[in-house]
């Protein structure tokens, strides 16, 4: 391996540390605000007080939030972390794009002093299992690196490290359970709200000329749908994201209708507008959520998008048209 080392000084391992500013940055990255994804300098880091040659070597991408969360998980442990250059993209996405790959890992390995990477006599690297869509394990083995399939979940790392056997986590499965869904709930809702602010603004503008339905309805109904959709995702019927959205919309509409009847504020106009708007928002959110879910099958999702996207667009346009007509009739 040393024959591939580029000329120049070999960078020494650096201590992995984060400040209070990184907590703020990580929070902003988590809620998906400001498009502010930052990258960490690639290279070899250590989490203890000094580099420990007996410490295992974990590999990760250089998305700031990824490395920050890994650092928090590894606090109090002596671990070496090889951060590879994934252009500031998380492990799963960058491996899907071919950036988290064997050649990039080897490039970073060759930048290091081999002695800094040796673990129990080998250059043994623990890879996140979700990187394997980009990493060809045989390519690493051919280069003299011993790859180990590590856990999928960050919170499984401490127990994995405690076991000390460094066996492949062959049976690890991405579950998309409630914990996973709650983690993406806030960013999903924030991002979807930004999209739904557009029809709300259009309605707000129209209402200045001809008052019709409240401008907040697309935004509020979108928010109202997205939270139960994410929480109830596995129990909503069918595997189609869009149909799950329609079901959530139906349940929400039934609850709203009951409330209107009790309040005696129900009008046919309001009902038709709300039904059309809710149905289209349910479809929109379902289709939007394909990118955040982690369990979307490309071919099936593509088929769904072709089928349901025109319906969702027509529904939203229809709801806005109803508002225009109602305002004009006044």
């Amino acid at each position, binding site marked *: 391996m040393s024959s591939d080392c580029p000329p120049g000084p070999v960078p020494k391992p650096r201590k992995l540390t984060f400040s209070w500013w990184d907590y703020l940055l990580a929070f902003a990255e988590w809620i998906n605000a400001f498009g502010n994804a930052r990258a960490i300098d690639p290279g070899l880091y250590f989490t203890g007080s000094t580099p420990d040659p007996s410490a295992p070597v974990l590999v990760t991408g250089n998305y700031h939030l990824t490395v920050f969360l890994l650092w928090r998980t590894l606090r109090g442990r002596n671990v070496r972390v090889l951060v590879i250059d994934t252009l*500031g993209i998380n492990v799963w996405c960058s491996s899907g794009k071919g*950036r988290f790959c064997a050649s990039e890992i080897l490039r970073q390995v060759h930048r290091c002093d081999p002695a800094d990477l040796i673990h129990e006599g080998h250059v043994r690297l623990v890879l996140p299992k979700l990187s*394997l869509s980009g*990493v060809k394990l045989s390519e690493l083995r051919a280069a003299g690196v011993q790859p180990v399939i590590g856990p999928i979940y960050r919170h499984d790392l401490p127990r994995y490290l405690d076991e000390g056997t460094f066996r492949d986590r062959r049976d690890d499965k991405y579950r998309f359970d409630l914990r996973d869904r709650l983690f993406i709930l806030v960013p999903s809702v924030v991002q979807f709200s930004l999209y739904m602010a557009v029809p709300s603004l259009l309605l707000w503008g129209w209402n200045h000329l001809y008052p019709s339905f409240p401008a907040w309805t697309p935004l509020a109904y979108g928010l109202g749908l997205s939270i139960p959709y994410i929480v109830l995702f596995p129990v909503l019927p069918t595997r189609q994201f869009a149909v799950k959205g329609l079901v959530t919309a139906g349940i929400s509409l039934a609850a709203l209708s009951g409330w209107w009847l009790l309040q005696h504020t129900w009008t046919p106009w309001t009902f038709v507008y709300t039904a059309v708007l809710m149905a289209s928002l349910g479809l929109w959110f379902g289709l939007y959520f394909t*990118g955040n879910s982690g369990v979307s*099958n490309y071919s099936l999702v593509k088929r769904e998008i072709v089928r349901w996207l025109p319906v969702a667009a027509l529904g939203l346009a229809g709801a806005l048209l109803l508002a225009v007509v109602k305002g004009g009739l006044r």
Partner: protein
Amino acid sequence: MITIDRGRCTGCGVCIHVCAREVLSLEARHAVVRDYPACLECGACQLNCPADAIEVTKGTGCLLAILREDILKIAPPGSGCGCGSSSGGISKGGCG
């Protein structure tokens, strides 16, 4: 789609070990697709199969990516989701 060439499959099981969704299993010393809807079509099995026996229609199962890459065709494969666009786009340089 995911297809397995039974003639080429040696039953080594690597595809099963690298899969994060338990999509594949071994039957009569050959890999078979057990749960296709659970498949993410990430391509880990195809990439790591030593016998080149697996073919996957690899792609990003995301509205924005499919809209931009497959329907409107305004973004090259792997860059349509917007993930990482602030870094100047995705380069596959050296990664194959």
